[in-house]
């Protein structure tokens, strides 16, 4: 079943159009990775899916429903949660409060879900009363993902979750992505660390100058020499 279906989306900031008609989809339960050089529009694509950038043309369907006209806070309850690349926690709120804000739209008691998150991320449990601003880079990324999982989304959008992390922490993040996916949550991520990300992905897209250039299964893209030369750097 197709969870997210993006067709012909154009979007940008002010008069500058960054996406020139993008087609892309995510099936239920998939991990999908978008790679591409800087300025290719990866983050803009994520933002237009969650509603932080308005699409000027095209269609975005989530779970069969058209969402491109909805405000961001109306899209979230449908089951898609977003983790921005930077500034992805509330720094003066405590860890627990951050999780409560993640679950803002839930009307039940949050304690159970918060306990689940602390089980999934034991590091956070230890610091539950600390301000999120005091967390280290890796913990902060865990915090950001935990906040987004509070609503039990069907699709989790991650914008460069490993940016600025040490290789060891990167491994941990990718392991976390797999674990989350194993619980049935589909993941759409933008990654700089493309080879690693593609290797755990079901499918991948290569974005350049606001258009999709290639689409294939994750491992296939990871091993494609032309992709490697163009976008994967010298790894």
């Amino acid at each position, binding site marked *: 079943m197709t969870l997210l279906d993006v067709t012909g989306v154009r979007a940008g900031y002010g008069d500058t159009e960054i996406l020139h008609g993008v087609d892309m989809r995510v099936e239920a339960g998939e991990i999908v990775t978008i790679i591409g050089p800087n300025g290719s529009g990866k983050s803009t694509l994520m933002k237009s899916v969650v509603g932080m950038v308005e699409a000027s043309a095209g269609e975005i369907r989530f779970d069969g429903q058209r969402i491109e006209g909805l405000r961001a806070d109306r899209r*979230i309850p449908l089951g898609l949660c977003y983790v*921005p690349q930077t*500034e992805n926690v509330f720094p003066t709120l405590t860890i627990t409060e951050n999780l409560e804000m993640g679950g803002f739209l839930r009307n039940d008691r949050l304690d159970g879900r918060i306990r689940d998150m602390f089980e999934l991320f034991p590091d956070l449990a230890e610091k539950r009363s600390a301000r999120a601003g005091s967390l280290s880079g890796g913990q902060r990324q865990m915090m950001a993902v935990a906040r987004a999982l509070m609503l039990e989304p069907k699709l989790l959008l991650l914008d460069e979750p490993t940016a600025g992390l040490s290789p060891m922490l990167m491994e941990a993040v990718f392991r976390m992505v797999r674990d989350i996916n194993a619980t049935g949550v589909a993941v759409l991520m933008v990654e700089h660390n493309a080879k690693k990300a593609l290797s755990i992905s079901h499918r991948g897209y290569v974005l350049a100058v606001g258009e999709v250039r290639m689409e294939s299964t994750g491992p296939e893209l990871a091993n494609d020499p032309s992709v490697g030369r163009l976008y994967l750097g010298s790894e």
Partner: protein
Amino acid sequence: MARASQVAQTLLAIIFIVLALSQIGLAVNGIFLGSILALGAVGITLVFGVMRFANIAHGDMMTMGAYVTFFLLVSVLPEHTGLGPFTFGFPLLIALPVSMAAVAALAVGMDILVFRKLRLRRANIVTIEIASLGVAIAIRGFVQMVWGTPVRYFPNEGRTHFSLPADISIAPNHLFVSGAALVLAIALHLLLTRTKQGKAMRATSDNPDLARASGINTDRVLLWTWAIAGALAGAAGVLLVIFNATAQLKPTMGFQLLVPLFAAVVVGGIGNPYGAFLGAMLIGISMEVSTAWALPTYKPAIAFTVMVVVLLFRPRGILGSKG
């Protein structure tokens, strides 16, 4: 370099404490003044937190609160003064919350009629700030049209001061002022840390984009913030009148407090409500203690000087974290 700055900051703190202790009577007065400033400054800082602009109309919102109470005391409520040791009567206890509600409504109305329109047009922050200057002048003009320019007075009767050791004498009204301010401060603290709406306010102030991405309706958070800031400003205006020995009001009373209010906000760290309280106390005490040596009319200049000195060492204020 960092070491020298720390030494200088410690020295300044010591000088401040020594001066305050040497004029303990004035310093106590400064705490009372500080508690009024705090109610105003917290409102400015809360609005700044979610909208990123310093509301110049805040002083005149305080004026409005004072005049609404004046109207209620003189024209609506029964005449009564001298409640317990205070110069005012029980009607004030009714007028105070009504004024808070009225100014809260005014603040929400301002946002809907003016600031939201500018926001939707993505107007420059300073344009919004100038609009708030326009709103400030319009509110003052309204107050003057309705109540005139001459000084007015709350109904009041003279009362003796409480005498304490060390030459401290305290007017009972001042205790009421700081008591009321303390109650409001605690209520605000509980609201911000214990309720979902309050936490959403802090979250929006921290990171409005992420708040929206968490499903928080930030437009509604904004209106809540205006309402709370307005209610606190209304209370501050009423308390400012009671703080004055002769209970006088004039149309410029709020605007004249703008420099000390902004100084308190900036000294504490703009956007941080706890910083605003701290800043207000620091500014209030500095202003009162300075009258031992300088003319009382220089008080706003003293507030401004303290702000400049603090900014020289801490460009983001004492508790400031945001850029």
